[in-house]
C-alpha cells in the first residue's frame, strides 16, 4: 500500500499558517499556525467546539479558510475540495462516518477509486480480492465482512470503513478526527499498531481524540486548541495529563469520577431471560441509585439490548419489569411512559433534529409538560432549555442556534439534556460521552453520579474501559449477544473485563445473577 513518501525531504509534510475561520457569527478558528512533521503523530486536543474538526476540514479542502494558508510539503496550496486534498496526499477520517447505505463495505471503502477492467467495467472480483487482502493485512478481517451492506453496519463498523478508506490509499498526511469514539479496546489496539507503522514509514499523522490515555500512548506531540486559538504545543514525552488539561480548560480538573452515591436495595429494572434476534437469554438488574456498566467488544450486542429495553427492538421472549411490574414494550412510547430515558448511540441518526434549534431539540421530549391546552409555552420551553444549557455547559451562541452547527461534543450534550429534561427513573445511556471533551466528561460523570444519588437507576454502555471502571458500581460484560459475566466494582479491572469480553469459549455461558 502506502509507498515510502520520502521522509528525507526537508520540512514538514503539512503546515498551516495563521488560519482563521468564521461561521456566520461564530469565530471557530483565530490564527492557528502549526506544522505537522513527517514521521510524527501530532495530537490535536481541546474542548468541544475548540475548533479541531474545523481545522481538519480546512486541511481536507472541505472548508476554505477565511484567512491564512495551507502549505503542503512547503508549497502553499489552495485546496478546493476533498478530492483536491487527496491529490496532494492528504487523507482525512472525518468525525462522523459517511457511509453509502445500499452498497457493500468493499465498495464503500474503495468508493471513488473502484478497480476497473478495460472499458470502465467494474472489476468486481478484483475489488473483493483487494478488500480481503487489505483487511487481512491491516488486521481487521474479523471485524467486518466485505459483502455487508453499508446500511447494516454498526457504528463501530461504520467508523472502521472510514478508517479503511484512508488506510487503503496512498497518502503523505493522515488526519483522524476521533476515530476511536465508538471503537472498543481491541480495535483501538489494532488501529494504534497501524498508525505507529505508518508513522515509522514517514507519514505525518494528525490525531484528534478526547481520550487522554490514547493520546499519551500514541502521540509524539500534543497541540492544544482553546476557543479557536492555539493554546500550546507540547512534546508528549515531556508533559502530563494535568498540564494538557490545564491548557485545554484553563484550570485544573479535580477528580474525573465523582462518587457521592450509595446504591439502595430496591431493584428498579429487572431484565429476565430476554431474547431478541441478536441477544439471547439476558438477565440483568439495576437498583435504585445504582450505575451498571455494560462492557463488551464491538458487536457484542449491547446496543441491541438497550434498544430492546426501550421497546425499539422486538423482544422474542423473556420479560422486562420496572418496579416489579412487568412492562409491555411494544414501542419506545411504552418505555418513555414507564419512566425509562434512553440516549441512543448514534446521535445524528437516532437522536438529533439537525435542522432544529437547541431549544427545540431539548424541549421536544417534554412537550406534554410544557404545553397548556396543547399550546407550547415558549417561555417555559426557553427556561427549561436554558437550564440545561447552563447545567451541561452546552457551547452554543444562542438557544435558537441550529443543532447541526454545533460541534460534535456539544450535540451529544443536547441529546443528554433532552433525556434528563424528562427526569426519568431509569436511564439507559449508550456511549454517553462519545466525542465529549474531558471537562465535559467530568461534568457528565458528576451528573450521572448526582442522578444516581437522587435514586435514578442507570445503565451505561461504554466502550471506554476507564469510563466503565470509573463509573460503575457493577460491570456486566457481554459477548456475542450473551452476558459472559458480572463483576463488582471491587473485582473489576481491565484484565478481568477484557477476559470476559473476549472469552472465546462460550460452551457454558455464564449469566447475570438473577437476584
Amino acid at each position, binding site marked *: 500500500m502506502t509507498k515510502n513518501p520520502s521522509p528525507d525531504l526537508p520540512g514538514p509534510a503539512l503546515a498551516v499558517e495563521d488560519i482563521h475561520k468564521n*461561521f*456566520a457569527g461564530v469565530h471557530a478558528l483565530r490564527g492557528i499556525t502549526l506544522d505537522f512533521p513527517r514521521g510524527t503523530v501530532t495530537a490535536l486536543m481541546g474542548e468541544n467546539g475548540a475548533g479541531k474538526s474545523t481545522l481538519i*476540514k480546512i486541511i481536507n479542502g*472541505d*472548508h476554505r479558510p477565511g484567512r491564512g494558508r495551507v502549505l503542503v510539503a512547503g508549497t502553499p496550496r489552495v485546496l478546493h*475540495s476533498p478530492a483536491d486534498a487527496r491529490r496532494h496526499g492528504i487523507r482525512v477520517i472525518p468525525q*462522523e462516518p459517511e457511509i453509502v447505505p445500499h452498497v457493500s463495505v468493499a465498495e464503500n471503502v474503495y468508493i471513488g477509486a473502484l478497480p476497473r477492467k478495460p472499458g470502465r467495467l467494474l472489476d468486481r472480483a478484483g475489488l473483493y480480492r483487494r478488500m480481503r487482502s487489505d483487511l487481512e493485512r491491516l488486521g481487521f478481517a474479523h471485524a467486518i465482512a466485505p459483502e455487508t451492506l453499508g446500511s447494516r453496519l454498526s457504528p463501530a463498523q461504520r467508523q472502521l470503513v472510514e478508517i479503511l478508506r484512508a488506510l487503503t490509499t496512498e497518502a503523505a498526511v493522515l488526519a483522524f478526527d476521533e476515530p476511536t469514539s465508538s471503537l472498543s479496546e481491541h480495535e483501538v489496539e489494532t488501529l494504534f499498531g497501524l498508525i505507529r507503522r505508518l508513522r515509522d514509514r514517514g507519514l505525518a499523522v494528525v490525531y484528534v481524540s478526547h481520550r487522554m490515555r490514547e493520546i499519551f500512548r500514541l502521540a509524539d506531540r500534543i497541540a492544544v486548541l482553546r476557543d479557536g486559538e492555539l493554546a500550546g504545543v507540547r512534546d508528549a514525552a515531556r508533559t502530563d495529563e494535568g498540564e494538557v488539561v490545564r491548557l485545554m480548560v484553563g484550570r485544573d480538573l479535580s477528580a474525573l469520577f465523582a462518587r457521592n452515591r450509595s446504591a439502595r436495595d430496591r431493584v428498579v429494572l429487572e431484565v429476565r431471560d430476554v431474547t431478541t434476534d441478536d441477544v439471547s437469554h439476558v438477565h440483568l438488574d439495576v437498583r435504585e441509585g445504582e450505575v451498571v456498566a455494560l462492557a463488551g467488544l464491538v458487536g457484542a450486542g449491547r446496543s441491541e439490548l438497550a434498544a430492546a429495553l*426501550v421497546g*425499539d427492538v422486538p423482544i422474542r421472549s423473556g420479560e422486562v419489569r420496572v418496579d416489579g411490574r412487568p412492562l409491555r414494550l411494544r*414501542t*419506545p*412510547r411504552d*418505555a*418513555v*411512559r414507564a419512566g425509562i430515558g*434512553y440516549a*441512543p448511540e448514534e446521535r445524528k*441518526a*437516532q*437522536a*438529533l*433534529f*439537525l*435542522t*432544529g*434549534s437547541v*431549544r*427545540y431539540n431539548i*424541549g*421536544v*421530549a417534554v*412537550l*406534554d409538560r*410544557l*404545553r397548556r391546552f*396543547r*399550546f*407550547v409555552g*415558549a417561555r417555559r*420551553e*426557553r427556561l427549561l432549555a436554558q437550564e440545561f444549557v447552563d447545567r451541561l455547559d452546552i457551547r452554543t451562541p*444562542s*438557544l*435558537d442556534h*441550529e443543532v*447541526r452547527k454545533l460541534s460534535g461534543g456539544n450535540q451529544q450534550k443536547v441529546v443528554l439534556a*433532552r433525556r434528563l429534561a424528562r427526569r426519568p427513573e431509569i436511564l439507559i445511556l449508550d456511549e454517553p460521552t462519545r466525542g465529549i471533551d474531558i471537562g465535559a466528561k467530568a461534568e457528565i460523570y458528576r451528573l450521572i453520579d448526582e442522578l444516581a444519588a437522587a435514586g435514578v437507576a442507570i445503565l451505561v454502555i461504554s466502550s471506554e474501559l476507564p469510563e466503565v471502571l470509573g463509573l460503575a458500581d457493577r460491570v456486566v460484560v457481554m459477548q456475542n449477544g450473551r452476558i459472559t459475566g458480572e463483576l463488582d466494582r471491587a473485582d473489576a479491572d481491565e484484565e478481568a473485563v477484557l477476559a470476559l469480553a473476549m472469552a472465546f469459549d462460550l460452551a457454558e455461558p455464564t449469566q447475570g445473577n438473577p437476584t
Partner: protein
Amino acid sequence: MTTTTDAPPPMPATSAGGAHVRALPRRVAGAVGAQNTSLIGALIVVVGTFTWLDDGYLTRANMTVIGDTVAVTGLLAVVQTVVIVCGALDISVGSQAGVASVVSAMAFTSTDGNAALGILAAIGVGIAAGVVNGIVIVYGRVNPVIATLATLAAYKGVAQLLAGGRAQGYVLGDDFFIFVARGKILGLSVQIWTLAVVAVAVHVLLKYTDIGRNIYAIGGNDTAARLAGININKYLVSVYALAGVVAAIAGVILTARTGSGQPTSGSEGLELKAITAAALGGCALKGGKGGVGGTLLAVFLLGALENGLNVVGVNSFWQNVAQGALLVVAVVIQQRRNGERAVGLPT
C-alpha cells in the same frame, strides 16, 4: 450534506423562539425568513410588471379574481405543507376534492337541497379517504408516493362511478352555495376567507402546539421522534385525515364555483399545483422543514403570474414556457442569495 450547505435554513423552532430578546426589525425579518423574503420580492416584481403592462391588473376586482382563483389550490397547498413537513406526500388530494365535490352535490340534491348535509357528507368522505391513505401507508407499508398515486387513480374512479361520469346536481339555486360562490364578508370573498381561516388554523397548529412540534420532529428525524415516544403512526394517519378534510372543503368550493358536482373536471392536476407551491414555498420534500407562510406566498405568486399572463393575453403555449421559466428564475435568484456552494443536489 451537513458540511456544505451553510445556508440559513428557515427552521420550525427558530422564528418563534428568539422573539422577545431581539429588536423589532430583526424580529420581523427573522419571522419572515430568507425564503419568504425572496418570494415577496418575486411577488412584487410580478405584480409590478403586470401592473405596468395592463392597468386592469392591479384593480380591486382583479385582485378578487386572483384570490378566488387560488383559493382551491391554496387550501390543498396548505394542507400539503403539513403532509410534506411530516416527510410524506399526498398526491391524491385532487381526486379527493373530486369525490367530495360529487358527494356534496349528490347529497345536497338527494336531501332536497340541504346544504349542510351536503357539506357534512363531503367532509365525511374526505376523512374516510384520508384515513384510508394513512392506513395503507403506515400499516400496509406502502411508500407514500406510490400509495397516493394509487389512490389518486382509485378515488378518481370512485368519483366518476358515483357521478356516472357526469356533472351532478345543480347547487346555485341554494343560498348557501351562492354565498360560497359569490358572497363577500368585509369586502373579501368567502372563498378567500375559507382559505385564510384554514391557513391560520394550520399555521397555529404547526407553530404553536405540541402537535405541530411533533410533526416537525417526525419529518426531521423519524427515528429520533419514535425514540422520544411520539406515536408516529397516529400522527401520520391523522395528518392524512386532515388532508382529506381540507380536500373535501376544496371540493365543496369547487361545487359552489361551478354550480355542480364535478367528478374530475377542475380537480385533476391540483395535486401538482399544490406540491409545486409547497416546494416553492420552502418545504423540503424530505420533511422537517417548511411552513404555511411560504406556501401561501408561493400560491399567490403562482396565481398572480397565471392571472397576469391571461390579463395581458399571452397565448396559452407561451404561458407554459413563461411559467416554467419564471419558476426557475425565481428559485435560482432565491438560492443564489443564499450563496450556497454549487455541489451536488440542492435540498
